[in-house]
């Protein structure tokens, strides 16, 4: 049996760097944190076995700099690199480079990242594996007659998008068959004139949807699913609150979602922790594959809290070449977990980033409360990176208890000196709609519009 890695270089910062350091320590793996100049005094740098400065503040010159990361791994003798999320975590060239340099990349092989990173290719693989995708064209269609026949099969309402368009230009929603031919020919000739390319994407236009994703883990032979997470509470496609299990799924749908996700992983020979993302149509109660994330995700603790499984440790074991020692039967989802992303942003000012110095910090505590954060009293949030300062995760025996516990924990949380989204989370959790579990991806936007009109 292969031995566990002895040393891992952590190519990330903030709470996820700390999360990986903690897993390394519990497994007896030497943790080598690389950091930029501004992160030299950060909590991950203090708690890692070794901290190595690799460049200036700009991520391009430090956390996103492949040669600095590989150079540090060689010079400081790290067997593997854990990329965390963001930065180079889904960069196929970096995964290839690690392989060429004889360093283990904690993630799938470069070609798997490449396949899944290409939306059309991923959709094609999904269809071939029997995984439902949003009805529509596979890639761009340039012939009018072909576009018309695709559109007729898709169903209404549908969305036509100019392939060369962007930012809302060259887009049209078609509500019924009687205007389809006219709409399609107009948008294709407009696209020809505006962009010099008449090709369009055609897709079913879904509005009443939830975002549901399935956590998977595979050692390359055994692929397991660890239940879904519901990330419907979003603002401008940014997840705010995630929970598990989803209040919208029944046992049958959950099983089909799990089977679809496992089938997709098997089709590409997936190896690592991963997340298969779906949209769930509330109207027809059907799910469609959108993309797969080939990294550990921000919201992974939600799954950890309901399954009791440490996903980072499994990633490290798989990267060591050790086979999974659990089977699907061992995975049981117990109770309910919710995560609130605490961002240094001001909800009163359109969620503008609010960097600065945390004068005073107090983490909430008690039964079922977990706070993953790198901030401490006196910590200065640098303006160079993202605004997330921590994640508050609460477990309860059921959804109601989890909501009550999260509300209580948010009350206990103190982050003085910078503005955070903590109180905004309390507002969301306190709405009857969130409490009912019946909402869609527009829910937060509607809540914000409502509060604006009442305060005017």
């Amino acid at each position, binding site marked *: 049996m292969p031995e566990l890695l002895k040393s891992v270089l952590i190519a990330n910062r903030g709470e996820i760097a700390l999360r990986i350091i903690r897993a390394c320590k519990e497994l007896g793996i030497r943790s080598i944190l*690389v950091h930029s*100049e*501004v992160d*030299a*005094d950060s909590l991950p740098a203090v708690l890692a076995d070794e901290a*190595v*400065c*690799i*460049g*200036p*503040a*700009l991520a*391009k*010159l*430090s956390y996103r700099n492949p*040669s*600095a990361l*590989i*150079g*540090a791994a*060689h*010079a*400081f*003798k790290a067997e593997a690199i854990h990329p965390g999320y963001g930065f180079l975590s889904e960069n196929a060239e970096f995964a290839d480079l690690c392989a060429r*340099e004889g360093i283990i990349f904690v993630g799938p092989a470069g070609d798997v990242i490449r396949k899944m990173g290409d939306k059309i290719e991923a959709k094609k693989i999904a269809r071939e594996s029997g995984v439902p995708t949003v009805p529509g064209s596979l890639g761009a269609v340039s012939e009018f007659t072909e576009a018309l026949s695709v559109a007729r099969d898709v169903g209404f309402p549908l969305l036509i998008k100019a392939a060369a368009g962007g930012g809302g230009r060259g887009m049209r929603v078609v509500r019924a068959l009687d205007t389809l031919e006219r709409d399609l020919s107009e948008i294709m000739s407009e696209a020809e004139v505006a962009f010099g390319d008449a090709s369009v994407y055609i897709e079913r236009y879904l509005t009443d949807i939830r975002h549901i994703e399935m956590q998977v883990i595979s050692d390359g032979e055994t692929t397991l699913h660890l239940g879904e997470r519901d990330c419907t509470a979003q603002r401008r496609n940014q997840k705010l609150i995630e929970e598990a299990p989803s209040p919208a799924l029944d046992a049958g749908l959950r099983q089909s979602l799990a089977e679809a996700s496992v089938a997709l992983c098997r089709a590409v020979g997936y190896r690592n922790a991963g997340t298969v993302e779906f949209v769930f149509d509330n109207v027809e109660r059907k799910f469609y594959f959108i993309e797969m994330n080939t990294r550990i995700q921000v919201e992974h603790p939600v799954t950890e809290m309901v399954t009791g499984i440490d996903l980072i440790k499994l990633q490290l074991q798989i990267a060591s070449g050790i086979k999974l020692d659990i089977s699907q039967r061992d995975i049981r989802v117990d109770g309910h977990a919710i995560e609130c992303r605490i961002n240094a942003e001001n909800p009163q000012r359109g969620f503008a980033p609010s*960097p*600065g*110095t945390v004068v005073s910090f107090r983490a909430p505590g008690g039964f079922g409360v977990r706070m993953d954060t790198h901030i401490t009293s006196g910590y*200065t949030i*640098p*303006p*160079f990176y993202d605004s997330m300062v921590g994640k508050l995760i609460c477990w309860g025996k059921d959804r109601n208890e989890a909501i009550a516990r999260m509300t209580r924990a948010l009350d206990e949380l103190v982050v003085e000196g910078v503005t955070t989204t903590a109180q905004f989370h309390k507002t969301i959790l306190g709405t009857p709609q969130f409490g009912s579990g019946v909402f869609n991806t527009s829910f937060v936007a509607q809540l914000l519009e409502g509060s604006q009109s009442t305060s005017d």
Partner: protein
Amino acid sequence: MSSRSVDIKELKAIIDWVNVTEDIREFSLRFGDVELYVSRNEHASEGARPVPASASAAAPAAPAPAAAPQAAAAPPAASSVASSVTLAADEVVIKAPMVGTFYAAPKPGQPDFVAIGDKVSADSVLCIVEVMKLMNNIEAGVEGTVARILVSNEQAVQYGQPLMVIKRS
């Protein structure tokens, strides 16, 4: 405007100028595909914080290959990497411009580039920092004598780690 790329001498001159110009806290420059960012803030871009009372406390934690003599005798900022170096007024510290492995000699078995007491000129090679088998010659940047060598052969070095101290002539 010329599209030629900036050379290392020009970059060094710019960094030296930023280091001696006390009223510049942060500096960024884009020239073709070269991007340069220099900050003398303890925590960069932290404009709201009051300037430290003593001028020496604002010593540059700048990623400069050679710190300006004005920074002399100043303790490095809390966030500066590796061991702190105390400098006399006429001394300059040579820092690693990248993370990698330090080599004192051009090849194993050959004599070291420099020893303590050696006279060097601005373009004298002091050592190599190797990253991904790329050998980066580290030049003195100033004229003087080698006063201290702070790392040993084949040692792993961090970005910005002090490697040598040169006494200016």
